[in-house]
C-alpha cells in the first residue's frame, strides 16, 4: 500500500483535518444549558433532504414564529435561538445531530423532532440526560403512552388512533351497516390508524371487509383501490400521506367507485383536495369526511377576516417571503411554536429543564391562534396528549364544511392505558 512515511503523514493529516473541519467552536455550557440572561437555545432536527423533505417546512414555520416573538420582546427578555439541523429522516443521522445540538450547541431542549423512527432513536439519549424532548411531530400513540419510562418526552398533535376512533364512531352512528375498505400506508403510521379503527368499532370490527396496504415505493395505488372496490365495500378509509391520498381519491373516481370516504387529517389540506379534483373530477372529492384541529391557510374564504390568519401572513411575508404561505406545514410550525413559547412563559423567568417539563405537563392553552376555534391544548402529568379535540368536516365544492361539534377524544385515549 503506502511505502513512504510522507504519504502516510499527509493522509493522516488530511484525515485529522477533515475531522476538524467538521468541528465547530465549542460553546461554553451555562448553569442551565441553553439559557443565558439574553438567550434560550432550542434545538430541532427536521428532514431537509431525503424523502420526507416536505416536512422541513414545519421547522421553517417554527423559525418564523420565533423571529416574531424575538422582535416583540422575546420571553422575559430572552431571545429564542433556534438551531434546526437536517437529519434526512434517518435515525443514525438524527442521533448524531442531536448529540451535536446537546453537546456542542448546549441546547436547552429539543423541540418538534419529526418522525417515529427518528424520535424512537433519540428518545433514550435525551431522557437519560434529562433533556426535554418537547412536542414531537408525530401522532403515534406511544409518545403519550410511554411517559412513565420516558418522562422527558411529550407529543402534541392528536394521536392517530384517537382520530380513527372518531371516524369509527361516525360510521357506527351514520352508516351502521357499512362495509369498510381500508387503504393504508404500510408502516407504523398506517398501522396506528387501523388499530384505532378497530378499537372504535369494537365488536363491529368485522365491518372491515378488506384492507389494502401500499408502500411508499409503489408507483400508484390504483391496484389497491381496485381490490377494495371489488370487495364490495361501500365505505372507504384513506389512511395515507398526501401524494398517495390524492391518488387514492382519484383512482376511486376513475374506477367509478363512489363510497362514503373518510380521509385522515394529515392529507386534508385544501391544495391536496383541489389537486385530486383537478385530476379526478369533482366526484373524487365531494362528500369526503375528515377531521380538523388546525386552521388551513389555504382556506382563504373561511378565514378572510380572521386576525390570527392575518398575523400568520404578515409574519410569513416578513420573515420568510419566498415561502408558499398556503402550505399547511408552515402553519403547523407556527402553531406548535406558539405552544412552545406559551410553555416557556409558564415555566417562569427562572428557567430550568424541570420547570419546562412541569409546565408542559400542566398545560392549559385555550387560545392558540392557529388551532381550530374551541380547541384547548391541555395536559396533566398523567395524560400527555396535548391536543385531543377534533371536529369532523365534509368537503363541499371548494372547502371543508365543519359538521357537528368539536369532539374531545380524551376519554378514548385514556382507555388505551
Amino acid at each position, binding site marked *: 500500500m503506502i511505502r513512504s512515511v510522507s504519504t502516510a503523514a499527509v493522509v493522516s493529516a488530511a484525515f485529522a483535518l477533515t475531522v476538524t473541519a467538521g468541528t465547530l467552536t465549542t460553546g461554553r455550557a451555562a448553569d442551565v444549558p441553553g439559557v443565558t440572561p439574553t438567550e434560550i437555545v432550542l434545538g430541532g432536527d427536521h428532514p431537509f433532504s431525503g424523502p420526507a*423533505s*416536505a416536512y422541513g417546512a414545519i421547522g421553517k414555520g417554527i423559525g418564523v414564529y420565533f423571529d416574531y416573538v424575538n422582535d416583540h420582546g422575546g420571553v422575559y427578555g430572552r431571545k429564542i435561538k433556534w438551531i434546526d439541523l437536517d437529519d434526512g429522516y434517518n435515525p443514525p443521522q438524527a442521533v448524531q445531530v442531536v448529540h451535536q445540538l446537546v453537546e456542542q450547541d448546549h441546547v436547552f431542549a429539543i423541540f418538534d423532532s419529526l418522525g417515529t423512527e427518528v424520535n424512537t432513536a433519540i428518545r433514550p439519549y435525551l431522557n437519560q440526560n434529562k433533556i426535554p424532548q418537547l412536542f414531537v411531530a408525530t401522532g403515534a400513540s406511544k409518545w403519550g403512552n410511554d411517559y412513565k419510562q420516558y418522562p422527558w418526552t411529550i407529543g402534541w398533535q392528536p394521536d392517530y388512533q384517537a382520530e380513527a376512533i372518531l371516524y369509527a364512531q361516525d360510521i357506527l352512528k351514520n352508516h351502521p351497516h357499512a362495509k369498510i375498505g381500508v387503504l393504508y400506508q404500510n408502516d407504523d403510521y398506517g398501522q396506528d390508524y387501523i388499530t384505532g379503527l378497530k378499537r372504535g368499532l369494537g365488536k363491529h370490527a368485522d365491518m372491515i371487509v378488506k384492507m*389494502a396496504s401500499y408502500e411508499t415505493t409503489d408507483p400508484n395505488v390504483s*391496484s389497491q383501490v381496485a381490490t377494495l*372496490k*371489488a370487495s364490495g365495500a361501500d365505505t372507504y378509509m384513506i389512511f395515507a400521506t398526501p401524494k398517495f391520498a*390524492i391518488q387514492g381519491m382519484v383512482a376511486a*373516481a376513475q374506477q367509478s367507485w363512489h363510497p362514503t370516504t373518510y380521509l385522515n387529517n394529515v392529507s386534508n389540506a385544501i391544495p391536496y383536495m383541489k389537486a385530486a379534483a383537478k385530476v379526478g373530477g369533482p366526484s373524487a372529492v365531494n362528500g369526503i369526511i375528515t377531521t380538523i384541529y388546525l386552521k388551513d391557510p389555504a382556506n382563504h374564504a373561511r378565514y378572510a377576516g380572521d386576525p390570527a390568519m392575518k398575523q400568520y401572513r404578515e409574519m410569513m411575508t416578513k420573515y420568510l417571503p419566498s415561502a408558499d404561505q398556503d402550505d399547511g406545514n408552515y402553519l403547523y410550525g407556527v402553531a406548535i411554536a406558539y405552544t412552545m413559547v406559551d410553555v416557556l412563559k409558564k415555566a417562569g423567568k427562572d428557567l430550568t429543564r424541570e420547570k419546562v417539563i412541569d409546565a408542559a405537563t400542566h398545560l392549559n392553552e385555550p387560545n392558540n391562534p392557529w388551532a381550530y376555534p374551541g380547541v384547548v391544548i391541555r395536559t396533566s402529568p398523567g395524560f400527555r396528549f396535548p391536543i385531543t379535540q377534533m371536529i369532523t368536516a365534509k368537503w363541499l365544492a371548494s372547502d371543508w364544511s365543519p359538521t357537528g361539534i368539536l369532539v374531545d377524544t380524551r376519554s378514548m385515549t385514556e382507555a388505551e392505558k
Partner: protein
Amino acid sequence: MHDLAQQIVSGLATGSIFASLALALVLIYRSMGVINFAQGEMAMFTTYVAWQLVQIGMPMWAAFLLTVIVAFVGGVALERIVIRPVERASALSVVIVTLGLFIALNGLAGWIWGFVVKPFPTPFPTTPLQIGGAGFSAQDVGVIVVSLATLALMSLFFQKTKLGLAMRAAALYPEQSRVLGIRVGWMLALGWGLAAVVGAISGIMIAPVVLLDPNMMQTEIVYAFAAAVLGGIESPVGAVVGGLILGVAINLLGTYVEAIGNELRLAAALAIIVLVLIVRPAGLFGRVAVQRV
C-alpha cells in the same frame, strides 16, 4: 371479472408511465453505453420548469414546447460539461457523476420549488372512461399514445436519418467514426439532449397522474430500469413492451399472489431485473451479446 379487468387496465396505465421513462433510458444507453442514474431527476426538473412556465401565465402548449427546448439544451450542456471529462475514464466514474447529478438536481428542485406535492396541468379531460367494466382516464390513454409516438419517431430517427446513423456509429465504433469524419463528441452530446427531451415529455405526461414533487421520479425510475432491462436495454420497442408487461405483472402479482402481497411489489420488480439479467441479459427484444469473463 371486473377486478381482473381493472387490475390489467390499471397495470397498463401504470406500465405506460414506466415505458415512457424507459425510452429515455434506452436512448442514453444506445448512444453512450452508460446508464444514467440521473435520468429521472432530469425529467423531474424539466417538468418543474414546465410547471413554472404555466404558473407565470404561459399557455400550456407553449410552455411544454419551451420546456422541451430547454431540456434539449440542458441535456447537451450536461453532457459536455459534466459527463465528457469522465466518459473515457470508466464506468465507475460515470456512475458516480450521474449519482452526483441525481442528488444535486433533487436538492435544487426542492430548494427552488419546495417539497409540497403540486397538481400538474393536463390537456386531457378528467371524465373517467371505461372498457369492459374497468375504469381509466384519458390521461392514461394519452401517456400510451405519446409513448408510442415517441417510439415511432425514435425508430425512424435512428434507422432512417443520416444523423441517427451517425449517432449509432459513434456509440458503437467511436474510433472508426472519427476517421469517417463524424464528430463523435457532439454525437454523444446529442444523445443526451434527445434523452433529456424524451425525459421531459415523459415527465409532463406522468406528472398529472403521479403529481409533481421533487421525489416523484425516484421510484418510477426503478420500475423504468426494470422495464428497460426486461425489454432489452438497447431496444426502444422493448422499453415500451417491457413497461406495459411490468405494469400489469406487478399489479397481478401484488393482488393475487399472497406471498408478495402489497408489500413486495417493488421487490418483485427488482427480482425481475435480476432474473432477466442473469437468464437473458439481452431482454426480450435485445440482441444477445457476447459476454466477457
